[in-house]
C-alpha cells in the first residue's frame, strides 16, 4: 500500500511539474509582449516598461520560470496587476467560498446518488427503478443555471427562506455562511447527483451479474445481503472515478452558478482575470486548479487501492 501511494505521489509531482512547464511556456510562446497585451493598445511606453520590469520580462526565461515556481512553493503568487493585491490573498479569499461550496455540493450529490442508485439497481425494472431513472434523466437534462433561477424564485423571492444571492462570509458564523451556500450547492449537486446515480445503478447491475454474486447466493445469502456485502464495494470503482471528476469540475466549473448567486468564488476570479487580461492571476489560478485536480486524482487513486486489494500490489 505504501509503495503504491509513493508511486502515485511521484506521478503527482511529475504531473505538476509538466503542467507548470506547459502553463509557463504557453504564455511564453504566445507571440507579442505580455505587458503590451495586458495594457492594451493605447499603453504608454513608460507604463509598459514598468510592467515589464514588474513581470520580470527583462530576465531570461529560465530565471523567470524558477522565480515563478519558487515563489509558488513558498506561497508567493505575485501581485495582481489590476487589483494591486497579492494574488495569494485573492485566491485565499475565493477558495474560502469555492472549496466549501464544492464539498457541500459533492456531499449532497453523493448523499442523493448512492441511495437512489442502489435503490434503483435493487429493484431493477420495477416502478421504483423506472421513476428514479426518469428523475435522473430530467436532472441530467435540466441546465443547472435555469434550475438555480427557479430555486431563487421559489425559495428566495416567494418563500423568503434564503437570500437570493451573495455570501454571508465565515465571520458571520458557520450556519449563516452555509445557508448562503445552500441554494448554489443544490443547483450544482442536482445534475451531478443524477449522473452519479445512473453510474451507481449501472455499475451495481453489472456487478450483480458477476459469478461471485451467484456464489454468494449459493452460500445462503439473500438477494439483499449479496448486494450489500458483495456487490456494493465491487461497484464502487467507476463511481469513485466519477466523483473525482465531478469534484474537479465543481471547484472551477461553478462559474455560472457563482454568477447567478453573486458568489465571490474561484470561477468568477478566473473569469474576471481573463476579461481584465491579468495574466499573473490567470497563470496562478490555473496552476492552482491543476494542483487541485491532480490532488483529487491522487486521493481517488488511494481510494481505489483502499477498495481493491489487487491494486495494492503483491505481498
Amino acid at each position, binding site marked *: 500500500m505504501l*509503495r503504491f501511494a509513493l508511486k502515485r505521489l511521484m506521478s503527482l509531482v511529475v504531473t505538476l511539474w509538466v503542467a507548470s512547464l506547459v502553463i509557463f511556456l504557453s504564455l511564453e510562446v504566445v507571440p507579442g509582449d505580455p505587458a503590451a497585451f495586458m495594457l492594451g493598445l493605447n499603453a504608454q511606453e513608460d507604463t509598459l516598461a514598468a510592467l515589464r520590469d514588474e513581470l520580470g520580462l527583462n530576465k531570461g526565461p529560465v530565471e523567470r520560470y524558477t522565480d515563478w515556481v519558487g515563489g509558488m512553493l513558498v506561497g508567493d503568487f505575485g501581485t495582481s496587476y489590476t487589483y494591486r493585491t497579492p494574488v495569494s490573498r485573492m485566491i485565499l479569499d475565493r477558495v474560502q467560498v469555492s472549496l466549501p461550496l464544492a464539498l457541500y455540493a459533492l456531499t449532497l450529490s453523493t448523499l442523493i446518488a448512492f441511495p437512489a442508485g442502489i435503490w434503483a439497481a435493487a429493484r431493477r425494472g420495477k416502478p421504483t427503478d423506472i421513476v428514479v431513472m426518469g428523475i435522473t434523466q430530467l436532472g441530467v437534462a435540466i441546465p443547472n443555471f435555469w434550475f438555480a433561477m427557479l430555486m431563487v424564485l421559489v425559495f428566495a423571492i416567494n418563500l423568503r427562506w434564503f437570500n437570493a444571492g451573495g455570501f454571508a462570509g465565515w465571520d458571520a458564523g458557520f450556519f449563516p455562511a452555509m445557508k448562503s451556500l445552500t441554494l448554489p450547492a443544490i443547483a450544482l449537486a442536482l445534475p451531478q447527483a443524477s449522473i452519479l446515480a445512473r453510474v451507481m445503478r449501472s455499475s451495481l447491475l453489472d456487478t450483480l451479474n458477476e*459469478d461471485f454474486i451467484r456464489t454468494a447466493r449459493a*452460500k445462503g445469502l439473500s438477494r439483499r445481503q449479496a448486494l450489500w456485502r*458483495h456487490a456494493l464495494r465491487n461497484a464502487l470503482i467507476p463511481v469513485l472515478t466519477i466523483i473525482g471528476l465531478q469534484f474537479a469540475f465543481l471547484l472551477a466549473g461553478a462559474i455560472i452558478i457563482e454568477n447567478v448567486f453573486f458568489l465571490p468564488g474561484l470561477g468568477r476570479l478566473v473569469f474576471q482575470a481573463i476579461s481584465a487580461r491579468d495574466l499573473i492571476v490567470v497563470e496562478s489560478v490555473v496552476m492552482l486548479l491543476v494542483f487541485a485536480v491532480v490532488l483529487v486524482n491522487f486521493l481517488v487513486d488511494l481510494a481505489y487501492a483502499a477498495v481493491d486489494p489487487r491494486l495494492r500490489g503483491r505481498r
Partner: protein
Amino acid sequence: MTLLQIDTLSLDIRGTPILRDVSLSVDAGQIVGVIGESGSGKSMTAFSVMQLLPQGSVCSGRISLSGHEILALSEDHLCRLRGNDVSMVFQEPMTALNPLKTIGEQVAETILIHERTTAEDARKRAAEALRRVELPQDRFPLSRYPHELSGGQRQRVVIAMAIALRPKLLIADEPTTALDVTTQAEILTLLKRLVQEDGMGLLMISHDLAVVADMADHIVIMRRGEVVEQGPTQTLLRGMQHPYSLALLAASDHVPDREGTPQDTPLLRVRDVVRDYPTPRKGLWGKPGTFRAVDGVSFDIRRGENLGLVGESGCGKSTLTRAILGLEEVQAGTIALDGEPVFTGHRPNRAVRRRMQVVFQDPYGSFNPRHKVARLVCEPFHLLDDPPTGAARDRATAGALESVGLSAGDADKYIHEFSGGQRQRIAIARALIIRPDLIILDEAVSALDVSVRAQVLDLLADLSDRFGLTYLFISHDLSVVRSITDRVLVMQAGRIVEQGETERVFADPQHGYTQQLIAAAPQLPDDVRKLAHEH
C-alpha cells in the same frame, strides 16, 4: 437413503420450455453424473435444485431434498437451506470469488450466515474447511485474496465454502472444465474424498463423458431438456440403448479418417526460439526483470503433417503461436516457412504471413459482430498484394464457405445467426480463403460440444486431404490431439520436453511430465472405447 429426489421436473423461462419431465435421484454418499451438451438443461436442473433461476422461471413437478419440498418453500427458507443443506461449486473459479474479500472472510461467511457464532469460531472453522481442501494455513493463510491464488486453488476455496457446514448434497456444475488436466485430476480426487468422508451426495454436471465415467456411480444423460437415458455407470456405459447416448459415446472418442501422408520436406522450421517478456521493475528504481515464456524451442513441421502441441496454461503455447505467426518478434532463434523467415529485420514478412492462417478457440469473440460473413471471411485478403474484387471475390467467398459445409448464401448473414459449431466453420473458411500452406489451430475445437467437435475434426481431416494443408494443432485436450495428429510436442515452462510420433508418445511417454499429463487425462475404460468405435 434418498437425499435428492427430482420427479417430473419441468421448467419454463419466460414461456420458453427449458426442462421437460426430468426425474433423477441422488442418495447419500452417491455420485450422480449428469451428462449433456450445451442447451441440454443440465445446469438448469442444478439451478432448479438451488432455486437460483433467472427471473421469469416457472418450475413444476417435485424436488425433494432430505424431506424439504423445494418448490413449495419460501425464499427465506431456501436461503436457510442453501449453503447449509445443499451447496454448489461452479465452472469458472477465476470469477467465482469476490475479489475484494479475503478467502478467510469468504469461507467464514458461509458459517456466519447460518449459525449464531463468534467471528473467532467462524474463522477457526474456515481454517479447518480450507485445510480439508488441502489449502493449509501455513501456506495459504486466511488473509489471502483470490487474485493471489491460481485457478485450481481458487476452485478449492469455492469447494471449502461449499463444504464448510458439511452439507448433505453438493452440486458441482462443470467444476473442472476451466482447469488444466493435472489440476482437474486433483480437484476430482478431492471431491471424491470429501464425498467419502462426509457421506454427502454429489450431483456432478459435465459435458465430458470420460470425467463422469471415472467419478460417478450413476449417470444421467440429458438432451434438449429431457433425460434420454440413465443408469448405474458400469452398466450404462456398456449397454447404452438410446441412439443419442450412443452418438455421444461415439463422438467423445471420435477419430477422423485421414488419408494424406506427410511429405519429407519440412514446411515450417523453428530453431532455438526464445521469447522474453519484461516483468514489472522491482522497487522504484529497480531494473525490470524478464520472463522467458519460450525457451530455446526447436522443431519442424513437414508438409502435409498434423503436428500437435500440448501443454498446460502458461506453458508458452500461445506465445509460440504468436511468434510463428509473426505477430511478435522473438529475442533469439529463427522461424522460417519454406526457408523464408517470418520476420525480416523488425517487420513481419508479408510474403510468409499470407501462407499461414490461424483459427482461435472462441467462436464467439473472434468475429466482429457488425460485419457480414462475406466481409469476415474475406479479411485475410488484405495480406495479398492484388486481392480479388467483384465477382472473383464473391466466388472465393462462396468457395470457402462451401468447402466448410456452409452455403454461399450464408455470406449475407451476420455472425449472431450461427451456432458455435457453424461459427468455427466460418473461422476455418476465413483461414482457407487465401489457400494457406499452414493453418494453426489454437484450441480450435475446445469450446465445442463433443458431437460438433467430432464434425469439425472430420471437416479438418477432409480439408487437409483435399487441399494438402499442414496443421499445427494446439490443445490442452490430449484425446483430441491423439485423434488427429501425426506427431506431438509436449511443452512445459517454455521448453519442449518431449516430441515424437503421437501414438508412440501416448503409448510410451518418456518424460516425467508427459507421463503425468497422460495419467491425469480422464479416459473411458478400454472396453467402452472399443464399443464407441463400433458405433
